[in-house]
């Protein structure tokens, strides 16, 4: 195993590593724009230069493409390196508009950070900047500002190496090079397209859904798990910081998802998520059910729970459909409290939507529910069949056709969203959603990932875990 010296410190390295990889593994920071741990080496930004010390002088070259060799001595912050990084940043900002004030990337922009770390002085150019396209619609989801683009080619390499859509390329030469779709509409069909927004080291590629929605420093992120399929990618759900709560504008904005980004996780999704995961607001911010009902008549929550408890207590052959969107904790609570009384089946809450990609070899999986594996581990994988004598069905979660329930059976329905079935149940109990509680999901490979609460639930809504305990108690307790 070769040993190299970075800034005088001995650093162990693997045989086929580059200096960049060895330095990162040892916790030494080398700046980079175009390099990315999951992409091929392009070596075009030239900011990762380091100095190699050698007899009779040394040389400066890029760390991302420099193989380690035993005994090599690297300086990451020598005078030559600093001078070259400064010159490189002068080039990069030469035609960059430096419009950080109106740029969504400001606050999390690598160019901003490096400018202050390695350059710090204004442009020495007095000539007009090269103008290029603003708001180029790269796809239905993504807009491109070619003036901000530093042509690092990360997005192009992503579509070639990761999503394999080959949807992006660079056309033109020199300082008139432009990132463009290789064919019209091709990038729209790439279900991973929005990863290029995170990959972009500057504010060139922007998500249309997040455009001008918030300055990133007003936001905070909560670790969560995407419920879009059984892969269970870990994500960060971004929402307004408490201390920057909006008072005069629509207060619902304080409790809404600003955007979703990947939470890097080598065990499950690496640094990527698919576009469905970016659209969790479309799932979680549907109209919510927050009113308990008995046969469609609004009642308070405690009354509804009491009625449901009595229905369950009086049933002779009850059956239950548990949700594959329930957390491991909720599923375990059901089994512990009510499981013995019920013939239990696992329900697929979500089916693939028309046109949705079913499966590929990147991330997307065919089962569009996050915790099917966790539920099946507790309740088996038997198909839903009702006994003729079934006199009560507890339905937990959406997506089940009530027409399949025997006519004489009573229905206890737990749902979070405003749906017509809610009013058909004998007892309807509104429950909380994933962003309002914490818990764990088990993905199809058996990997367990945690999610945390981003927002507080309404008092008129109950957590399923607490509800099951209440339903199982003979006398009943207030929720």
């Amino acid at each position: 195993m070769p040993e190299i010296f970075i800034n005088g410190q001995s650093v162990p390295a693997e045989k086929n590593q580059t200096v960049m990889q060895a330095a990162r593994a040892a916790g030494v920071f080398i700046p980079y724009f175009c390099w990315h741990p999951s992409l091929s080496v392009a070596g075009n930004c030239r900011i990762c230069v380091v100095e190699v010390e050698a007899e009779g002088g040394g040389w400066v070259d890029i760390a991302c493409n420099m193989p380690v060799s035993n005994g090599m001595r690297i300086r990451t912050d020598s005078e030559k390196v600093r001078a070259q990084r400064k010159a490189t940043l002068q080039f990069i900002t030469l035609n960059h508009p430096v419009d950080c004030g109106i740029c969504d990337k400001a606050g999390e922009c690598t160019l901003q950070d490096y400018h202050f770390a390695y350059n710090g002085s204004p442009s020495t150019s007095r000539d007009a900047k090269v103008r290029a396209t603003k708001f180029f619609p790269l796809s239905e989801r993504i807009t491109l500002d070619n003036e901000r683009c530093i042509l690092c080619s990360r997005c192009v390499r992503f579509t070639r190496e990761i999503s394999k859509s080959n949807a992006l390329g660079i056309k033109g030469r020199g300082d008139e090079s432009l990132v463009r779709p290789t064919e019209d509409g091709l990038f729209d069909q790439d279900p991973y397209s929005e990863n290029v927004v995170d990959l972009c080291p500057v504010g060139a590629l922007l998500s249309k859904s997040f455009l001008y929605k918030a300055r990133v420093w007003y936001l905070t992120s909560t670790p969560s798990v995407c419920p879009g399929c059984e892969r269970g990618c870990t994500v960060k759900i971004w929402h307004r910081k408490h201390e920057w709560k909006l008072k005069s504008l629509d207060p619902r904005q304080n409790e809404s998802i600003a955007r979703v980004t990947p939470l890097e996780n080598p065990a499950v999704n690496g640094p990527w998520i698919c576009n469905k995961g970016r659209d969790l607001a479309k799932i979680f911010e549907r109209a919510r059910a927050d009113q308990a009902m008995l046969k469609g008549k609004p009642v308070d929550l405690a009354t509804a729970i009491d009625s449901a408890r009595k229905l369950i207590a009086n049933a002779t052959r009850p059956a239950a459909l548990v949700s594959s969107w329930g957390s491991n904790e909720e599923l375990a609570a059901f089994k512990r409290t009510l499981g013995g009384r019920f013939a239990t089946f696992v329900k697929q809450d979500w089916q693939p939507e028309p046109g949705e990609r079913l499966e590929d070899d990147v991330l997307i999986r065919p089962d569009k529910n996050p915790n099917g594996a966790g539920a099946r581990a507790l309740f088996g994988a038997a198909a839903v069949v009702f006994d003729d004598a079934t006199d009560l069905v507890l339905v937990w979660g959406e997506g089940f056709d009530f027409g399949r329930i025997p006519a004489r059976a009573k229905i206890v329905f737990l749902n979070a969203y405003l749906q017509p079935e809610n009013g058909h149940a004998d007892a309807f109990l509104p429950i909380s959603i994933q962003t309002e509680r914490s818990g764990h999901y088990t993905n199809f490979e058996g990997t367990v990932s945690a999610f945390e609460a981003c927002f507080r639930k309404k008092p008129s809504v109950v957590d399923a875990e607490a509800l099951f305990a209440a339903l199982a108690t003979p006398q009943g307790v207030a929720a």
Partner: protein
Amino acid sequence: MTGRKLLMTFPVTATSHTLADYRARGGYAALAKALHHMSPEDVTKEVTASGLQGRGGANFPAGRKWSVVHLNDGQPHYLCANADEGEPGTFKDRWILEHAPHLLLESMLIASYALQVRNAFVYIRGEFDLPYRRLAAAVEEAYAAGYFGERILGTEFACDVVVYRGAGSYVCGEASALITSIEGKRGYPRNRPPRLTVRGLYQQPTVINNVETLSNIAGIITHGAEAFKQVGTPKNAGTRLISISGHINRPGVYEVECGYPWAKFLYEDCGGILNGRTLKCVIPGGISTKVLTRDEVEKLTLDQKALEAAGSSLGSGGMIVIAEGTCMVRLLQVMLRFYHHESCGQCTPCRDGMGWLHRIIDRIVAGEGRPEDIERMYEISAANDGTTICGMGDAAGYATVGILNKYRDEFEHYIEHKRSKFAGNLEAIAHA
């Protein structure tokens, strides 16, 4: 006469480029000699012993490049002839392609034999029309005569050649961009390491030689390395094809023996400076080499070592003669417009630096120069020196610094007076 000749050894006629004429001159005898009497290692040894240096601009010893390729390693090897002659001022490979295409093909066959190459390529500049047609016809003739294909000259040796036309990019003349272009990709140069002789075309060991370099191989095999070394100087063996243009009475392609006196070449062989003017300076080997003043030129001999000692290079042999009265500011403007137009846009210093240099020089020429512009051009050139993926950033920097160092007064004059020290155009005639 410009010394002994190795390549331009026959009178150019209407048929001198054909296979029949080439064979009448003894063509394809070297191939027979190599295939029947030499092992691949012998050929490489002979080329190494000859001291043949690359004629494309970098002067890298051909034998040393070849010996990096491991024979019998079970991998396919590739050979590419670089006929993407794009360095401004250079048009010497064109002469070989037009008048001696079989010399190139025979030499490529010998090189393919030495390097165990099954598939060889010629990457020819897209703008070349007659050279392409002549070369394509020569390939047809050579196939028909059995010099390409299976069982060449009755031996086990098999080789095919593909002529690939470029699409008009200066950078594609850079070896790694050239093979990337052959692979059908955008002609971007590649980062080294790996060297192309380790992982080149289709990720296999690949040797890329200039057309003129390769064309010397047949002669080296026929007459031996010793005979080749007898020509030229001890450090720079052989001859150089020089394409001379600019303010010179007889422009054209000349074969010059290395070490030939430069002044004699200019004033006698090429007929002196145009219209009886005085020599101002010469760009010796394509615009990427540093300009040499009249005093330097007249003292030097035409070989790489002498030019290197003077801080320049014989480069690609594209010699541009510049007469007194020419405005160097306008000259640099033309050069920088070229570099800006040809920068591939891959890596930062060249992509943005070339445009920056071009905008500055345009502004100076428009009479809006600022005193700090000269320093800025030095800075941009320095920031391109050794920092780019290929050599283009360096080359543009050398060209700029070369002119700024020697003719700074003209730039200062232009900036101060908002007009040229001379009439302001390249063809201005100083003599009264």
